[in-house]
């Protein structure tokens, strides 16, 4: 699969203020029976049981159905999720990352991520950005005040900026992963290039 290369993303955000938002919530188990990786299928299932009630009608109060946030992500619009702490806990299902990426989101900002989900996001070319709790709360507050609040995520500089306050934070990412994201490279291609080292290890 060809990956969209990463550089600087400047966009409005979707606030999903749920702490410990687990991957069962991000995509319920019944959508896991698919054997495809169709982005639309998984994007439509994103947060399905919070978005729709048992009859399949949209739940008006849920953020993704609110007039200010329901527009599907596209360049500059809703490409960033600001999530609650411990984002993506629970099941290891990569389908949760496919749902986020299939919905059109390219960055998830939180004060903390569950380890497996964080790796899954990176492998799906969605950038997880860890910020301080204070910065996370400020983002929620800015977005609550003005749903058009722009946030800039600058991967080369490793900074995230709340454009409405001008506040900015540095975020961590290792040099290898940064290179992969900026150049559209997969871990699997890297590993396949290392076969001699793997065989040397096996023969030790």
């Amino acid at each position, binding site marked *: *699969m060809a990956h969209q290369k990463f550089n600087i993303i400047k966009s409005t955000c979707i606030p999903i203020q*749920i*702490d*410990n938002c*687990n991957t*069962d*919530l991000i995509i*319920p*188990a*019944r959508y*896991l*029976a*698919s*054997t*495809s*990786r169709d982005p639309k299928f998984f994007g439509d299932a994103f947060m399905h*049981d919070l978005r729709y009630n*048992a009859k399949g009608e949209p739940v008006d109060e849920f953020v993704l159905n609110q007039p200010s946030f329901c527009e599907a992500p596209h360049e500059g619009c809703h490409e960033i999720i600001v999530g609650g*702490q*411990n984002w993506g*806990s*629970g*099941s*290891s*299902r*990569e*389908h949760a*990352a496919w749902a986020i990426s299939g919905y059109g989101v390219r960055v998830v900002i939180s004060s*903390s*991520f*569950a*380890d*497996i989900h964080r*790796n*899954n996001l990176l*492998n*799906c070319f969605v950038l997880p950005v860890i910020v301080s709790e204070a910065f996370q709360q400020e983002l929620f507050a800015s977005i609550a005040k003005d749903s058009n609040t722009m946030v800039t995520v600058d991967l080369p500089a490793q900074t995230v900026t709340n454009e409405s306050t001008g506040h900015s934070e540095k975020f961590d990412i*290792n*040099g*290898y*992963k940064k290179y992969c994201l900026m150049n559209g490279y*997969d*871990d*699997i291609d*890297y*590993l*396949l290039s*290392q*076969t001699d*080292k*793997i065989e040397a*290890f*096996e023969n030790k």
Partner: protein
Amino acid sequence: MGKTLFDKIWDAHVVQKVEDGPTQLYIDRLYAHEVTSPQAFDTLRDKGIKVFRPEHVIAMPDHNTPSDQQETIHDPIGRNQVETLARNCAEFGIKHFCMGSKDNGIIHVVGPEKALSLPGMTIVCGDSHTSTHGAVGAIAMGIGTSEVAQVLASECILQSKPKTMRINIEGTLQPGVVAKDVALYIMAQMTTAGATGYAVEYAGSTIRNMSMEGRLTLSNLSIEMGSRAGLIAPDETTFAYLKGREYAPKGEDWDKAVAAWSQLKSDDDAVFDKEVTFRAEDIKPRITYGTNPGAGIAIDECIPTLDGMNESEQKQFLSQLEYMQFQPGQKLEGLPIDYCFLGACTNGRIEDFRAFASIVKGKKKNPNVVAWLVPGSWLVRQQIIDEGIDKVLEEAGFELRLPSCSACLAMNPDKVPAGKLSISTSNRNFVGRQGPGARTILASPLVVAASAITGVVTDPRKL
């Protein structure tokens, strides 16, 4: 400075440290199930590559398999997934324990009981409860589907090294208190993110005296506090459990293996990034009241009140209670329940069925309760029959079902209907986990058994 158990196994598997990046770690065992593997095999096909070390890979379906019959799967989507796994295994030359065969079961039950998971190994699976296998003294981690493809293609994954934490549990467990209670207790103390970024080692006298089944339960639940892995140093209990099992080393190889495995423990002067200690005496039978496994109380306690919570904590707490249809300060003991589930990779082992049977023996299942008793594997089911436990269950009005993940997650026909209250030995009480709108209380096999008899949440010590 000495090394921790985790460091010893990790260091022995480092192929290389990628410059300014993660570690390339060699994997000894990859387990694959039908849900998280199809897209990984597609990746291999897209790239036109083979499985690098097919002999390291073991596959079996478990999530979609029905527990009432296993002739066929009626749901075409679930059936397709199970058939896809079979096809992929045939195409790529991978050992496959197919649905209904005596080898099949939940991966995290089958792996240890066949001694496919051994001390000192690195073990991965596209499943968060892979942490279970850490109980034999291995590094066992859940991974995503992209990583499954990486392991299939190269026998390696790229991971940053986690920090280490030791959780000591000292003392003797009270009667009626089992490993599940220990895990639910630790989780309530640590919270669901308390071990994020860490690999945990469980130690202390309580663990040393714990059976292998109990240890597997404890390691299984490590992921519920965010831990990357949950290790227990192998000892005589481990060796006695593994010896003679199907894939265990035999004869001279066994002796050599035991000698090597005996070195697998944290050195006395090893330093952990974090260390915590709990007392076994403080632990009572536990239940959960909320929608994460850390939201739990002792069975005779009341749900917390809003006292001392800040505004955002109150909001999250109340939204959990709203879903569960509970009130702050409410006592759950004595509350009527609709469904009982014994099984899952948490509590689907022989010891769990013995414990359940010890409570229900000579009594009758409450007629208002639907009970699903689902062994974690065909081997467990056979053991249940060999020990005559099935007869005890039958006389008490219970039916023994077929091995499956069953009601642990709503992927197969065993779904708890919306609004119904279930008391379950599984590991997750998430919103909708047992079915859309289903409400789940997590508990030990003893608590679930006692509640199945009375029809209300029951302390097994009082039955």
